[in-house]
């Protein structure tokens, strides 16, 4: 008898424990519902900082800035200039741009926006103590004159062609801006205002009720940097994410065939190219014939077809066709491995050579795959490529500024859609964010064309200069453009009103709404 009671009691205990254990996850599951009106966006790049005055990373400038700040001038989806915090502008003379400012705008903390804020912002951006990767955008400006509270003049030392385009990247700051606070809790005038930020986890913003334009269609945006492609895409498939940047090309057809997900696609201002270190050792860095041989040995058509699965275009120039003054009819890049072998032999490397090719992990999609494919194509002409992976930090890091590497495969986005954004830092010896560029030899003509493009306000003069520059760099390359990839977004069907922009710097969530 006693045995049986014990037995029963014991069974009861065991089952109670089991039931409790099974209930725990179920209970937990019940709490997991997400809020409506919250748009979840995922990107493949994390924020290092929210400081929009120093970074050129697309996460900071393209997301934090676009959500929470406004520039003086915006770009429409077709690329034309639109009023931002400036409602009108006129070029008074070659050196002076006059802007009328929008009235009645306030920052998220209540500070009114006015001429003082414009002057403060530009002076801050020009401050030489500010170690900013954006320096080259603003260095043409010498002064901001305040005409009255809502009218300013921006004065440049020399005529400065790309000024309007560059202004689209400049986030207007409140005069009480505090660097310490603003790197983690930005205050702007933008459509969304800051709620919280956990680096590496999420940035949360909510609709700004006092926004000067149309009120945003969603209450909240949660932005999540998710570096792992698989996790990000799985999140879109399962409905945890509404919009994901960066879709691996092999998944485009699968996602397109998925009922609730569609792919939004647009030509990006990115060119993926092979650049050389300024101190690149011979053979790569010495003889121009070697570089030509590498150029001829790359089978771009195969790359576009196999690696990018058609989600990219053959390069039409050193920069992408949607950038200002892109050359319309340069000859297509030729794939000629035999000629490459001949050139290598002429240059004194009949048996080829070994060289390093670097890339930054996670910086661009498909980049690792492209490097693997290129290394095989180069092996076919005798160039043995050692693939080297750099730590995850992109453009502006020491790697691109450092000089003693052989080859570096990366993407350069001409975010302002003005060629100056690309050619100045890459081909002008005085570029401010470059270290000791004296060993670069671009040739006097290249340097002078880069300057002509920058220091002219006449669009025709600029166009001619940039066309000539593209012709020279096409024939005698110092960097090898490889492909121009598309930007691909995976978008859930409940998201309405999302349209990708030609530059990730102007993508826009104001019109986006969440339906069912």
């Amino acid at each position, binding site marked *: 008898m006693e045995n049986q009671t014990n037995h029963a009691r014991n069974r009861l205990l065991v089952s109670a424990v089991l039931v409790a*254990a099974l209930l725990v996850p179920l209970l937990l599951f019940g709490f997991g519902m997400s809020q409506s009106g919250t748009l979840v966006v995922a990107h493949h790049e994390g924020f290092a900082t929210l400081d929009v005055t120093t970074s050129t990373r697309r996460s900071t400038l393209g997301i934090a800035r676009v959500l929470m700040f406004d520039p003086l001038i915006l770009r429409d989806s077709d690329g034309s200039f639109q009023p931002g915090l400036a409602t009108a502008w006129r070029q008074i003379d070659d050196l002076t741009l006059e802007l009328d400012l929008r009235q009645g705008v306030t920052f998220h903390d209540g500070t009114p926006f006015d001429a003082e804020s414009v002057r403060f912002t530009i002076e801050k951006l020009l401050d030489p103590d500010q170690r900013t990767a954006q320096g080259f955008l603003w260095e043409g400006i010498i002064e901001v004159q305040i005409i009255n509270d809502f009218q300013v003049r921006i004065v440049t030392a020399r005529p400065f062609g790309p000024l309007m385009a560059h202004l689209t990247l400049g986030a207007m700051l409140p005069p009480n801006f505090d660097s310490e606070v603003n790197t983690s809790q930005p205050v702007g005038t933008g459509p969304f205002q800051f709620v919280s930020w956990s680096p590496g986890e999420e940035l949360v913003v909510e609709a700004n009720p006092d926004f000067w334009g149309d009120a945003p269609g969603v209450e909240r945006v949660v932005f999540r940097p998710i570096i792992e492609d698989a996790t990000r895409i799985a999140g879109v498939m399962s409905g945890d994410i509404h919009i994901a940047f960066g879709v691996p090309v092999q998944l485009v057809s699968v996602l397109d065939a998925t009922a609730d997900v569609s792919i939004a696609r647009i030509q990006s201002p990115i060119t993926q190219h092979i650049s050389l270190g300024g101190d690149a050792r011979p053979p790569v860095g010495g003889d121009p014939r070697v570089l030509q041989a590498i150029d001829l040995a790359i089978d771009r058509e195969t790359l576009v077809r196999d690696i990018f699965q058609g989600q990219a275009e053959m390069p039409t120039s050193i920069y992408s066709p949607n950038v200002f003054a892109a050359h319309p009819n340069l000859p297509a890049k030729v794939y000629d491995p035999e000629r490459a072998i001949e050139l290598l032999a002429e240059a004194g490397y009949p048996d080829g050579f070994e060289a390093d090719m670097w890339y930054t992990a996670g910086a661009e999609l498909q980049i690792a795959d492209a490097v693997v494919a290129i290394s095989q194509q180069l092996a076919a002409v005798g160039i043995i490529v050692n693939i080297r992976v750099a730590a995850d930090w992109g453009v502006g890091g020491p790697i691109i500024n450092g000089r003693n590497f052989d080859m570096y495969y990366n993407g350069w986005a001409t975010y302002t859609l003005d060629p100056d954004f690309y050619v100045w830092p890459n081909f002008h010896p005085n570029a401010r964010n470059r270290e000791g560029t004296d060993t670069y030899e671009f040739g006097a003509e290249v340097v002078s064309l880069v300057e002509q493009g920058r220091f002219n306000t006449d669009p025709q003069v600029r166009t001619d200069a940039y066309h000539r520059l593209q012709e020279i760099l096409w024939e005698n390359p110092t960097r090898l453009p490889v492909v121009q990839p598309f930007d691909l977004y995976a978008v859930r069907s409940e998201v309405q009103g999302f349209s990708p922009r030609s530059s990730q710097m102007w993508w826009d969530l104001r019109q986006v709404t969440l339906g069912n």
Partner: protein
Amino acid sequence: MTFVLNRFIQMLVTLFLMATLVFLAIRLTPGDPAQIFLGDVGSPHQYESLRELMGLDRPLYVQYLDFLQGLVTGDLGESLFDGQPVMNRISHRILPTVTLALTTMFAVVLLGIPLGLLAAAAPGSFLDVVIRIVTYSIQAVANFWLAILLIMFFSIRLQWFPTFGQGGPAHLVLPAASLGIPFLARVVRFVRGGILEVLDSDFVRTARSKGLSRVVVVTKHAFRVTLIPLVTDLGLRLGWLLGGTVIIETVFAWPGLGSLTVDAVRTRDYPLVEASVLILSAFFLVTNFFIDLSYGLLDPRVRYG
């Protein structure tokens, strides 16, 4: 009390040695951290200024004293990326990792003990053989592979659980399951093995011969004896669990210390690597210290000397 004090001092000594090891690992391994950080493409000027920034230009003992002083005052250095104190980034990453590790541990214990007892019910039976084979195999499953499979079925196909991140408790289910299932298999085996071992021992034979039922013997005697080795094993396995969180947090974009450590290693942010490795390891060490102390609660024969 002497026992507690002794163990505490022992723990501090180990902690000190671990910190020393972390310090030396960064500085004495064949690679030069500044060089590796720059990916051997930085200019000599960058190299020098980075060495200065990292304090590598000073004599080793000065660096060491500085490091120890930092540890005591809670100042673990600044990130090489944003110059912010690493503690700022670490502090809000601790709780998610502790939550994940402890939830997993809790669920595993809660399920593992009853299942282990059940598995010990009929040694040698067909069911027992199946349980032994299955648990033995599951033990060997890589948790990151399991994570992929779980995401594939439960997030994408069935859409039951979210795929990533931290939010409601539902977010906890898949990461905890990935970490917990191989661990659960081990605990079931451990409990089963322990119970059978004890059942075979003389004092249990005596108890049985006195006419006590098998159930009473198992619950009253055998289980208590099994508990201490089990708790010890759980404590040691916490290290394995924390190692697992490093990878599992990356898969699920779980904003804990583990994924932070991986980010730091990928970007070679050495001060952040040092600090997060130390904190994860200290957590392991301190937990085991408390487990040692808990023996007295589990077994009245252990007295704090």
